[in-house]
């Protein structure tokens, strides 16, 4: 694990624990399939296909990865399961690397933007409010001044939920109650952020399915109104995806990108048996980096995404 030296050991363990299920199957299956073989045959490709598909990587991306493996094996050859495993890992990492230049190693904010405005969007039930609560706590813990905006004025009790998180983290929550104009809440939150010299303003929005055009357009409006308070905001539009969602996540990424420029992804609920493989394809197709992953209930379980650790945890065997 030398190359992950900078990666907090505890966090790495928790991610691995979450993704444990795959690891066990994967290595033994691949080992069995390639025992005594010197080239990638139908059987190995079938195994690969099954592993990738059952991790929600999706048909198109799976085919893409398999093509890359075939091409790579043609020139590099491999000797055993370990090596094939390594090649596979490298190829998947490469797919993500093409979008993600460098991973941050910890929670940080750009030095010259104050306040840094993050708008959080996504479909219903993916964990937007929870992610915001955890983000707020993490920023607060490293000494940043945080303001939250309760822009989900639609779902029953969503404002109350964010306020509980605000109390837990010890950060102010700007709210106008339920059924109020979310754009007005966002404006007020950004303005409060400016007036109180906050480092970061995080704005919650109501969950919306990408098929509801009027709700999707509302996001553009919230963004425009935010810009009245701070012209270059929002600096980050974070799309939250549920790690257990299948190929519909691709559609979500596409539709949300249409109405607001998504700049980063957060993938939640990776502590279950779901693998979140769909983000590989999303990251590749839309060139949006994954920034955070959620691997548990605790505040520290919201982590910075690290592509190599993610892929390693997805594929590596337990030793």
């Amino acid at each position, binding site marked *: 694990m030398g190359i992950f030296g900078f990666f907090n050991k505890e966090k790495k363990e928790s991610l691995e624990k979450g993704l444990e299920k795959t690891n066990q199957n994967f290595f033994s299956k691949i080992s069995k399939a390639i025992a005594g073989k010197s080239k990638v045959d139908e059987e190995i490709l079938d195994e690969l296909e099954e592993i990738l*598909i059952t991790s929600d990587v999706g048909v198109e991306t799976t085919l893409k990865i398999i093509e890359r493996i075939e091409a790579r094996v043609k020139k590099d050859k491999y000797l055993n399961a370990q090596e094939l495993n390594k090649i596979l890992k490298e190829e998947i990492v490469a797919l993500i690397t093409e979008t993600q230049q460098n991973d941050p190693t910890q929670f940080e904010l750009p030095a010259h933007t104050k306040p840094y405005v993050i708008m959080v969007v996504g*479909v*219903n039930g993916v*964990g937007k409010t929870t992610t915001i609560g955890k983000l707020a706590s993490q920023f607060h813990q490293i000494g940043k001044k945080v303001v939250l905006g309760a822009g989900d004025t639609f779902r029953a009790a969503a404002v109350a939920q964010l306020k509980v998180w605000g109390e837990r983290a010890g950060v102010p929550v700007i709210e106008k109650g339920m059924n109020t104009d979310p754009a007005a809440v966002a404006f007020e939150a950004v303005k409060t952020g400016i007036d109180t010299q906050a480092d970061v303003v995080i704005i919650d929005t109501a969950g919306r399915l990408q098929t509801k055009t009027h709700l999707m357009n509302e996001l553009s409006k919230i963004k425009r109104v935010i810009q009245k308070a701070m012209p270059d905001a929002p600096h980050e539009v974070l799309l939250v995806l549920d790690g257990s969602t299948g190929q519909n996540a691709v559609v979500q990424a596409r539709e949300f990108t249409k109405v607001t420029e998504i700049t980063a992804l957060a993938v939640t609920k990776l*502590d*279950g048996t779901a693998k979140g493989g*769909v983000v590989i394809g999303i990251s590749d197709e839309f060139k949006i980096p994954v920034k955070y992953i959620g691997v548990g209930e605790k505040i520290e379980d919201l982590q910075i995404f690290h592509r190599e650790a993610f892929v390693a945890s997805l594929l590596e065997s337990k030793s």
Partner: protein
Amino acid sequence: MFKTLSNRLDKAMKTLKGQGRITDVNIAATMKEIRKALMEADVNYKVAKEITDKIKDEAIGRKVMIDVKPGELLVKIVHEQLMQLMGGTTAEMNLRSDPAVILMTGLQGSGKTTFSAKLANYLKKQGRQVLLVACDVYRPAAIEQLKVNGQAIGVEVYSEPENKNPIAIAQNSIKWAKENNKKIIIIDTAGRLAVDEAMMTEIAQIKTAIQPSEILFVVDAMTGQDAVNTAKSFNDRVNFDGVVLTKLDGDTRGGAALSIRNVVEKPIKFISTGEKVNEPNSFDIFNPDSIARRILNMGDVLKLVEIAQDAFDQQEMEKLNKKLRKNEFDFNDFYSQIQQIKKMGNLKDIISMIPGMGKMLKEVEIDDFSLTPIEAIIQSMTPKERNNPILIDGSRKKRIANGSGTSVQQVNNLIKQFQEMRKMIKKMNDSKGKRFLPNINPFR
């Protein structure tokens, strides 16, 4: 991205045409396409494999008619198989005990709280005395959420904000229900992961303590490959009676439904769309045909018909029918049609239920607002003009355009469309409609 299965199959089956019969050899490529299509709809890898094997057995030996596209024939076979796999008929809930207790369970964010309220509303409308119970003591404001929903539908919510023990709350609620003459108790619980041992033990304990007559497993229809693992784990622990599919809106393919059904062999009982608990079309009894069509991207005509029946006023319809037959369709009828369509709900959702439209719509912006200029134009006409559109000349058009805030060109377009419609209606009347009934039976 998602090609329709029928398109794919037509391509894969070009070789099959003219061969007369489906055989082991000529079907291999096609089966691969079917499997891919199922997996793209999030049907589990293994389940997709099993299903395609079954379909292959079913298809081999069938004759390929010359006048039927072989792709369509296979899609029909696939559709039949999927329906069968999903249980054919609808399954009822067991509500015989007094009070009958329904326990909800599922992952975080699957939509348990919203669905609990929708179910309560459904049962209340049948005249039952329903009680909602808030047992999610973990998620901030979950109790609050259920209370707000309960208020919206006029169903009482039992909660104990200070009590952190969901087992005790559930037991107390039953006592309370008996004292207050409630006949059906719906217990909303916290979301939990199947791998969370402590939480899974808790739900098993709740079950033992209250002996529910019905346990419903709530699952997000967008769930991917993991749906089978989760469903299996929950089923192993609580042996649930039925499945609820939520968030089945618009472009959700719902392959998870098929996987779950196949792995745990429990019926899917309800489907749910949208967040509003008292919207008429947000809750429905599960219909295997309708989901099979979604998975295959075939559109959902059945659902469309149901919604239309719900929304359309029967008397209005008869009136309209008479007018259509007499060829007296005018702008008043057109306007009332638009109002009826608007009652059916989100326009894009509705249109995407028409077979083949789902994909086309991906590129098109359709929302309820696109009807607004049409309504405005019609509203700017005088009653005389609406009854007798021929009256509308150049200067009247200008007045209508000004009045409705549109352009003369838009008014022209609408009138043109209207005339086209009339022509169509006339043709249909002339041929007594028979010519327009497409024959869709490929086995005739």
